[in-house]
C-alpha cells in the first residue's frame, strides 16, 4: 500500500509541474485562440536565465536562501515576460488578421528558431548543465513515504499562481479587458480597449508563468539543455487540452490527471515504457469522447 501512496505523491508532484506549464498555454489560447508552441522554449529560457542569475544573486543574498530564490525567479520571469512580448510583437502581431493556421505554423517556426539558436556553440551549446540548487532540499519521511521539499514548493507555487491568475482574469480591469478581447477583438477595440496592450500583457504573463515553471522543473530534475522544454511542453499541451483548453482550472486538473496517469503507468513493469504512449492515448480519447475537455465549455466562462 506504501507503494500506492508513494506513486500518488510522485504523480501529484509531476502533475503540478504539468499544470503550471499548461496554465501558460491556456492563458494565451484563451485570449488569442491559438497555441503558442514557443511556450516550451520560453520555459527553457527561464531555466537558463535562472542558471546564469544564480551566481550573482548568491553574492547579493545568502546562497540557497528563500530571498535569493525569490529574486532569481522574479528576475527570470521578468526577462521571459520581455522575451514573450518581443516574440509576440515580432512574429505574431503582423499575422493577427491572417488565418489561424498561419500563426500556428509561425509559432512552430519561432519554437525551432529558439531551440536551434540555443544549441549554437556561441549561445548555450547543446551540452547538458547542472542546474544550481536554489533552495536547500530536504526529503521528508513519514510512514515509509518520501516527500521531497521541492515537490511541496512546486505544488504550493502551482496553487498560488492558479489563484493569482484566476484573480487577475476575473477581478481586475485588465482581466475584464482580456476576457473582452477573447470574446470579440473588434468589439473590444470599439469599446476603447487597447487590444495590442492586452495581447502583449497576456503574452508577458504567460511567459512569466513559463519561466517559473522552467525553474521549478529544473529544480526537480537538475539538468538543463536547450531542448529541455520540448518534452514537458508537449505533455503540458496535452494537459491543457485534457482539462479544456482556454480554461484555467481545467489546465490544472488536466495536469494532475496526466501526471497521475503517467506515474501509475510508469510504475508497472512491462508498461513503464509506454508512459508517453498513455499520455497521447488519453489525448486521443478525450478528443473523441469529450472534445471540449474535462471541464468543457459550459462550466466556467473562458478567460
Amino acid at each position, binding site marked *: 500500500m506504501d507503494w500506492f501512496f508513494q506513486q500518488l505523491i510522485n504523480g501529484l508532484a509531476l502533475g503540478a509541474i504539468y499544470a503550471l506549464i499548461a496554465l501558460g498555454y491556456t492563458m494565451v489560447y484563451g485570449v488569442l485562440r491559438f497555441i503558442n508552441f514557443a511556450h516550451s522554449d520560453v520555459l527553457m529560457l527561464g531555466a537558463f536565465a535562472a542558471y546564469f542569475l544564480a551566481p550573482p544573486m548568491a553574492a547579493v543574498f545568502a546562497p540557497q536562501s528563500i530571498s535569493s530564490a525569490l529574486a532569481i525567479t522574479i528576475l527570470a520571469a521578468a526577462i521571459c515576460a520581455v522575451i514573450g512580448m518581443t516574440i509576440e510583437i515580432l512574429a505574431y502581431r503582423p499575422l493577427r488578421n491572417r488565418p489561424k493556421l498561419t500563426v500556428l505554423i509561425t509559432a512552430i517556426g519561432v519554437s525551432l528558431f529558439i531551440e536551434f539558436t540555443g544549441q549554437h556553440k556561441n549561445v548555450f551549446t*547543446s551540452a547538458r*548543465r*547542472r542546474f544550481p540548487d536554489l533552495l536547500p532540499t530536504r526529503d521528508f519521511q513519514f510512514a515509509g513515504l*518520501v516527500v521531497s521539499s521541492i515537490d511541496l514548493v512546486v505544488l504550493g507555487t502551482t496553487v498560488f499562481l492558479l489563484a493569482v491568475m484566476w484573480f487577475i482574469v476575473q477581478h481586475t480591469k485588465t482581466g475584464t479587458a482580456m476576457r473582452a478581447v477573447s470574446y470579440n477583438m473588434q468589439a473590444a477595440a470599439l469599446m476603447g480597449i487597447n487590444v495590442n496592450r492586452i495581447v502583449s500583457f497576456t503574452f508577458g504573463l504567460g511567459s512569466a508563468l513559463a519561466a517559473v515553471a522552467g525553474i521549478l522543473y529544473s529544480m526537480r*530534475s537538475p539538468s538543463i539543455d536547450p531542448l529541455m522544454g520540448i518534452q514537458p511542453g508537449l505533455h503540458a499541451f496535452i494537459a491543457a487540452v485534457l482539462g479544456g483548453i482556454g480554461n484555467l482550472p481545467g489546465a490544472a486538473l488536466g495536469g494532475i490527471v496526466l501526471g497521475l496517469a503517467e506515474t501509475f503507468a510508469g510504475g508497472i513493469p512491462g508498461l*513503464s515504457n509506454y508512459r508517453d504512449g498513455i499520455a497521447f492515448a488519453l489525448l486521443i480519447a478525450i478528443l473523441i469522447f469529450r472534445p471540449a475537455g474535462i471541464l468543457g465549455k459550459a462550466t466556467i466562462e473562458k478567460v
Partner: protein
Amino acid sequence: MKKLFWLSLILVPLWTACSKSESDSIRVGEYASLTGSEATFGQSSHEGTMLAIEEINAAGGVLGRKLELITDDTQSKSGEPATVVNKLILRDRVVAVLGEVASSRSLEAAKICQDNKIPMISPSSTNPKVTESGDFIFRVCFIDPFQGTVMADFVSQTLKLKKVAVFTDVKSDYAKGLAKFFKERFVANGGQIAGELDYNGGDKDFKAQLTAIKSQSPDGVFVPGYYTDVALICIQAKQLGLNVPIFGGDGWESEKLVEIGRDAVEGQYFSTHYSPEVGSDKSRAFVENYKKRYNGKTPDALAACGYDSALVLGDAIKRAGSTEGQKIRDALAATKDFEAVTGKITINEKRDATKAAVILQVRDGKFKYLTTVNP
C-alpha cells in the same frame, strides 16, 4: 545562352568538387555526436581521433600522403548519421569512416558504409549487431555480451549481491543489449532479477519507475544507460531513499555524470574500456600527449577508443598499400596483436576486438580504477 549559364553554375562546382578528391591527402570521414544529449561522448571520441591523425601526419603520414579528417556532427539524433555518412561517402569521397559511440547511430551508418563498400570502424559501439551489419564494419572495442558478463560477475562475486533490479533505456540498442546479457549471466551466477523497468532516454522524471523498483527491495540496480539519464536516476533514487549500489556500463563515462549527479553518483560502479591509471607505455604516452594537446584534460575511455580507431585504420591502410575499400577491409580484418592504447587489438572473425574491460568506481567526484577483467 541563359540556360548554359545556369548549367555552368551547377557544373563548375561539381567539377571542382570531383577534382578536389584527386588531391594528395587521404580523406578519412568521421561522424560523432559533437552536440546533443551524448555530446561529451562525441567530443571525447573526436579529440582522441584528431590526436591520432595529427600524430600519424607528424610522423610522415600513410603511404607518403597525409591523412585528412573530415568530421560531421550527428547532434545525438537518430536519422542524422545516415545523412552525414552519405555526405561523407558521396560528396567528400572518404576512403574509410570512423564512428560512432552510440550503437543505435552506428547501426544506422553501418548499413550505408556496407552498401558503398567503404570500411567503417566504430571506436566504442558495443552492441553486437553493429558489426553484424556486414563485412566492411569493424570495431576496436569489446562487445556487450562480454561487458554484461563482466558487470554480472563483479556484482555477484565482488559486491556479493543476490537480488538486482534492471532499469533499461528502451530507446537505445546499447542499453537493451547490455541489459539482456547482464541478466543472463547474473541469473546463471545464481542471482535473482528483482524487477525490470524501462524508461525512455531523455526522460526527466524517473520516480514512478524507481518507486516500483524500491517496492521490490533489491540489493542493487543495474542501469545500462547514458550518463545524462543516469545522473538524474541516481539523484531521484536517492531522494526516494533507494540507497543501494547502482551500476552500469561504459555509457556512464563522462565528467557530466559527476557534474549533474554530484553526491548521488558517489560510490557507484561502471565498466568501461580503459582507465588512464593503468596500462602500457603506449597508454601512458597517450595520456601525456592528450593532456598536452587539450590543455591538461585527462582522456577518458572514449577518447582512447577514438584514438585507437584512427591508429588501427592508419595501420591497415599502410599494410593494404592502397586506399581501395576492399583492400583496406582485408587489411583491417587481418589486424593482429596491434599495440594500441586500450590494449592489444586483434580483430576476430566477427570483426570485433577482443580486449579486457576495467571496472571503475566514482570516488570523490573522480573515476577510480578498481579492477581489470580479461576476456
